């Protein structure tokens, strides 16, 4: 009798599961689709959701103006928002793991600054390009050029920061170094601007405000391919990234080739953050905020689950920011960079204060 009772009773400490709540991922997918539609529907001209769905599924019953707006402006912008949000979040997550620092992210460690330098080199050095969207008129070759320059710039800065990281184990010192390297890069750009023609500076300044619009056709294809490759490399590195959390010595003792993994992660991050920064300008805060959101919502440190959910959450948050930026009903749009900070900062503060997770996340 007592035997059966004790058998029926669950053990005092059941074995924990390594897999977090999977319902979360489905919910996020649903949210993503919903916000994607909303982002297309809302703006200076509001289009009913039903019509948006109809247009997206190829119906020609809707007004031509709406169809034009959706297919040529809002759809590419929404896709860009999804790509940019996913790419920045995943690169931020990888940075935080690689540097084992909760404040690491593409905009803090000077990666965005490096990408800016790359873009500045292309924009300010190509003397002939004087009109507002000169780079976009360079066509496919030009867009590759911008992506390449931005990625190379990002990678160069990341390598400098990493070279310091090899010598200095202190995360705070490393962070300060990263910020300083970023500052140096920005000041180099400033000096360059000072000696450039006003028209060229204008191009560059507009670029720094950040914009999700203006990535069309072949450029969108380029961006998707580059980000896709970056995401694939990141997902493939999720097992080594988990071990990275233990620190370099443990990682090596577990048979991981830390040097090649670091290189792969840097490559992926440069591709992700570099290409997005190249096309959309330096977009702050998504890269820092989303990884923390993913960690506290999923309550795990396993990158096999963190990476996909950061991808989804980044896309969702970026769409939210874009909906706010285009101010439904108004004729103007806000610079996306301002909105991400406005939306991102409170989210980070809320998550940290509520969960007290930042401290327990990293030391």
């Amino acid at each position, binding site marked *: 009798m007592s035997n059966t009772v004790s058998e029926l009773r669950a053990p005092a400490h059941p074995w924990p599961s390594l897999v977090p709540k999977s319902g979360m991922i489905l919910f996020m997918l649903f949210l993503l689709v919903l916000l994607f539609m909303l982002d297309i529907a809302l703006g200076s001209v509001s289009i009913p959701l039903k019509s948006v769905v109809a247009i997206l599924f190829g119906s020609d019953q809707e007004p031509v103006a709406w169809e034009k707006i959706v297919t040529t402006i809002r759809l590419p912008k929404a896709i860009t928002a999804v790509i940019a949000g996913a790419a920045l979040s995943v690169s931020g997550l990888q940075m935080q793991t690689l540097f*084992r620092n909760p404040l690491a992210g593409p905009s803090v460690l000077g990666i965005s600054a490096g990408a800016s330098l790359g873009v500045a080199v292309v924009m300010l050095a190509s003397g002939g390009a004087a009109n507002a969207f000169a780079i976009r008129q360079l066509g496919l070759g030009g867009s590759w050029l911008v992506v390449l320059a931005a990625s190379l710039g990002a990678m160069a800065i990341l390598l400098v920061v990493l070279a310091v990281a090899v010598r200095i184990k202190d995360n705070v010192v490393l962070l300060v170094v990263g910020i300083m390297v970023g500052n140096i890069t920005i000041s180099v750009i400033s000096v360059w601007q000072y000696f450039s023609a006003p028209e060229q500076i204008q191009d560059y300044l507009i670029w720094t405000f950040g914009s999700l619009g203006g990535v069309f056709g072949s450029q969108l294809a380029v961006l998707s391919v580059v980000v896709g490759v970056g995401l694939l490399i990141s997902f493939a590195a999720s097992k080594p990234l988990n071990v990275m*959390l233990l620190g370099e010595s443990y990682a090596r003792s577990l*048979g991981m080739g830390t040097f090649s993994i670091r290189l792969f992660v840097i490559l992926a991050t440069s591709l992700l953050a570099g290409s997005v920064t190249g096309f959309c300008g330096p977009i702050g805060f998504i890269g820092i905020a989303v990884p923390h959101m993913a960690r506290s919502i999923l309550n795990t440190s396993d990158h096999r689950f963190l990476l996909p959910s950061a991808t989804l959450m980044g896309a969702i948050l970026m769409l939210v920011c874009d909906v706010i930026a285009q101010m439904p009903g108004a004729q103007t749009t806000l610079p996306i960079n301002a909105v991400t900070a406005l939306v991102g900062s409170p989210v980070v503060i809320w998550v940290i204060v509520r969960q007290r997770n930042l401290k327990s996340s990293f030391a």
Partner: protein
Amino acid sequence: MNDSMIQTRNLAIGYRLRRREFIARRKPSHPASKVVAGGLDLDLAPGELVCLLGPNGSGKSTLMRTLAGVQQPLSGSVLLKGCEMAGLHPKETAKLLSLVLTDRVMTGNMSVYALVALGRYPYTGWMGKLSDADEEVVRRAIETTGTRAFAHRHIGELSDGERQKVMIARAIAQDTPVILLDEPTAHLDLPNRLEIIKLLKTLAKEQGKAVVLSTHELDLALQAADRIWLMNPSGGSSSAMVAAIPESLVLDGHLEHAFKRNGFEFDPFSGSFRFSREGVRQIGLVGEGITAYWTQRALERAGCMVIPGASDIRHIEIETLNGEHKWKYVSGEGCRPVEKESLDELLSLVNESQNEGKER
């Protein structure tokens, strides 16, 4: 060929001085590397618990890092289960040798279970999915170390002792015949220290693992180790190594030599160090049992050299009546004894007379 787990042949450990090489080209006399210890011929058998002892700066950590393959040896070789370590793929090394380091693991939201599961890294596929057999190994490791009760908790919420046990569980989950631990008992209180050592001893005895741990706990090492590797700073800049069972290290005076400093002396009876008592006055102690032992300790702390049973010099007699203790202080032959009710009062009396003696 023998069945030793780790074997070193004429191993020299230390650091290459990268920046100095540049200077060395101009000044040929300048050394390009700093040898921390040389000529090491070590042997580690399965089922053996070895404690690596040595004063600070003698190269314990360097040796640990070299044995673990994290650092390259300056010369000589490390054989891991008969294979040259330099020729092994890191993945193969990871299946032979696991590490427990002093690095604080800083992990975001990582549960104890997930951390121990990372020990299976060398065995899992590219996505790191654990098979049922892997999970079984992880669970056994957690049960062996007695960490099951907090397997679901986050690493950040653990005490130092609990965290150390978890790190050992991770090493066990890695399922290697050799485990190296760098100061596993640092920062722990005595019960936790004993528990860790007991756990390691069980691992060595019951699972036949070869365990090497570096430590500063001399008495613990003397009690628990099957063999001690003693890093002995031998005059110059590099250390020499003595490997022997604990008892013969004490008898041969190696321990005393390695840790000798001014102001300390090694007591071969207790196997521990105490403040040396130079130029102190002798004092006799008449009495027995626990009271006498702790009275002696108190007197020694006050700087006296205690001679048990001597009543013909300055001495103390302990009287016990109905479980109450009284201390009689006799400052010399024929002097009137001074009676004290507590050890506290006795000690201040002894200190007073000691100071008088100095002034005179």
